[in-house]
């Protein structure tokens, strides 16, 4: 096989435009597959950090958009193995001009007294932590958001509510460093409660609870205990790991696994057809040369391996280029605003496993798409091949 490689290479370069177009189509397809595989790996196979492994999120069983009572906190806190519980509220709202995508960053209501307990990996100077805990209108933001929006301590940040009928005039009192580099803002949930007014029933509702367990072994038991506790209440809950919660956030768009697999299948099938058609055309044009090679003593197996080799070579080059492209796209996605909502995006990368899978897919595409024309050429009789006019 390697003995024929120079010949395979020359055949590949014979019709450069067609080869470049085929390689490009495979590269683009494999790039899409690479990004999908990286996404799938980050979402469904990524390992949580030690701090994440201790965190659970309790929300309404039906949907994240359904609130749960704030009174659940006391009951959750009493469960053995729970170190802390924090109410957590998605606010949404509009900051300045909503048409500027930079102004769209996640903002959550949190409880300052528990905030740095459930997020021990967030680093903030003590005086800023104190200010967050004591100023009702205080807000803290990640370093990434501060850099992105050029915010500095003391700045006023006004959020006009859309989910909630209130406007929050926040004062930036702290900037924290966190490992995932998300652009994110937290404010004191008490301020939202006050702004809603005493008669507003939403005052005593919350979007979710963040639970911090004492150790990771307790996590499944705590999740089960919380949900069983509220099983027959008007507000049944679902408690899941932080990672699973982020996936359910993403699942608003539908069944993600199925979605990814469907695109994966469609792209692979399409590129198989494109590649198969190109190889068939290329073999048909050179069927006379197959006859010449056979006359020189090339066996059907040798002919088969030369044609398969050519197709596999094109596919692997396309696959490698696709991997490089996908790696670039993952880099862009890592830095994009999507990572603020889904932590998995912030770790998106073409890992060695994904790269190997990409190349293996390219190899399979090359083999499958050329197997029929290669088999057919290897079985065509010498005289039929020599009679062919291409």
């Amino acid at each position: 096989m390697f003995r024929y490689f120079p010949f395979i290479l020359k055949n590949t370069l014979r019709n450069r435009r067609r080869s470049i177009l085929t390689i490009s189509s495979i590269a683009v397809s494999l790039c899409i597959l690479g990004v999908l595989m990286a996404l799938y790996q980050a979402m469904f196979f990524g390992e949580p950090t030690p701090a994440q492994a201790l965190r659970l999120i309790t929300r309404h069983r039906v949907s994240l958009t359904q609130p749960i009572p704030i009174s659940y906190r006391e009951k959750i806190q009493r469960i053995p193995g729970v170190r802390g519980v924090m109410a957590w509220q998605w606010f949404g709202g509009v900051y300045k001009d909503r048409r500027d995508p930079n102004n769209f960053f996640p903002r959550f209501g949190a409880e300052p007294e528990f905030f740095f307990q459930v997020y021990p990996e967030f680093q903030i100077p003590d005086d800023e932590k104190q200010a967050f805990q004591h100023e009702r209108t205080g807000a803290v933001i990640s370093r990434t958001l501060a850099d992105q929006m050029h915010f500095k301590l003391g700045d006023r940040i006004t959020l006009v509510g859309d989910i909630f009928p209130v406007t929050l005039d926040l004062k930036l009192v702290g900037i924290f460093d966190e490992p995932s580099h998300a652009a994110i803002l937290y404010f004191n949930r008490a301020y939202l409660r006050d702004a809603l007014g005493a008669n507003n029933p939403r005052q005593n509702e919350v979007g979710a609870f963040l639970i911090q367990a004492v150790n990771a072994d307790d996590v499944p038991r705590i999740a089960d205990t919380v949900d069983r506790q509220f099983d027959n209440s008007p507000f049944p809950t679902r408690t899941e790991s932080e990672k699973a919660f982020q996936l359910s956030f993403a699942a608003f768009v539908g069944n993600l696994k199925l979605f990814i697999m469907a695109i994966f299948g469609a792209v692979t099938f399409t590129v198989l057809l494109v590649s198969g058609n190109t190889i068939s055309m290329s073999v048909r044009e050179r069927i006379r040369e197959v006859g010449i090679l056979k006359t020189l003593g090339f066996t059907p197996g040798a002919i088969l391996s030369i044609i398969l080799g050519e197709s596999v070579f094109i596919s692997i080059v396309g696959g490698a280029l696709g991997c490089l492209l996908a790696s670039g796209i993952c880099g862009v996605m890592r830095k994009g605003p999507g990572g603020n909502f889904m932590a998995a995006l912030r770790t998106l990368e073409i890992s060695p496993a994904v790269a190997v899978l990409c190349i293996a897919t390219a190899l399979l595409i090359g083999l499958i798409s050329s197997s029929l024309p290669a088999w057919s050429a290897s079985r065509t009789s010498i005289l039929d091949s020599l009679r062919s006019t291409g």
Partner: protein
Amino acid sequence: MAETVIETHQLTKEFVRDAFHVVALKEVDITVVRGEFVALMGPSGSGKSTLLHLIAAMDRPTSGEILVLGQNLRSLNDRAIAKWRNAHIGFIFQSFNLIPVLSAIENVELPLKLTNLSKKERLEHATTALQLVGLGDRLHHLPRQLSGGQEQRVAIARAIVTDPDLVLADEPTGNLDAGSAQEVLTLLSRLNKEFAKTIVMVTHDPHAAHFATKARHLEKAELLPEGQVPADWK
């Protein structure tokens, strides 16, 4: 007694084309001994190319026996025949049939890729073969950079590079001008005389046949007795 290289008994080839039953070769008995240069002559459709293809095992007979270099070709499968052909047969086509993306030396090296020779040895052999046909200075030229006569000489070099026992040529001068044809025929004659190559050449051309040591005529799929020519032969 000279060794028999080709021996056929009642060799027949029939095929069906567009519902017509065609007898391409009928009960041919021919013997070629080592060192002969045989010209197979006859009008178009007389069966001379069919006979050449059967000798090269590029096709299988409908009936009869064919022994080439003592090997009964009907008993071999496709893979074994390919290997046998590589080891024992050199084939020269009318239309040269070089691989256009390969240089002269790479074209000549091709049959050697099926042997156990190293890359260096293969290139040495290919260079020697090209020098033998007078193209030592055209090793790296692509077929499109060569004249028709030079292309055919590259094809001859490719046919002899494995040092085959039998060289088969199918109208080797059919696509050449008179000067180039003369060069190619002289070369084949030299291979026969100086290197004792057994050559079977199909040709229409009586002038080409003069380079052979023996001429055999076919007419309407039948081989005429030695020395006999078709009635309308000029």
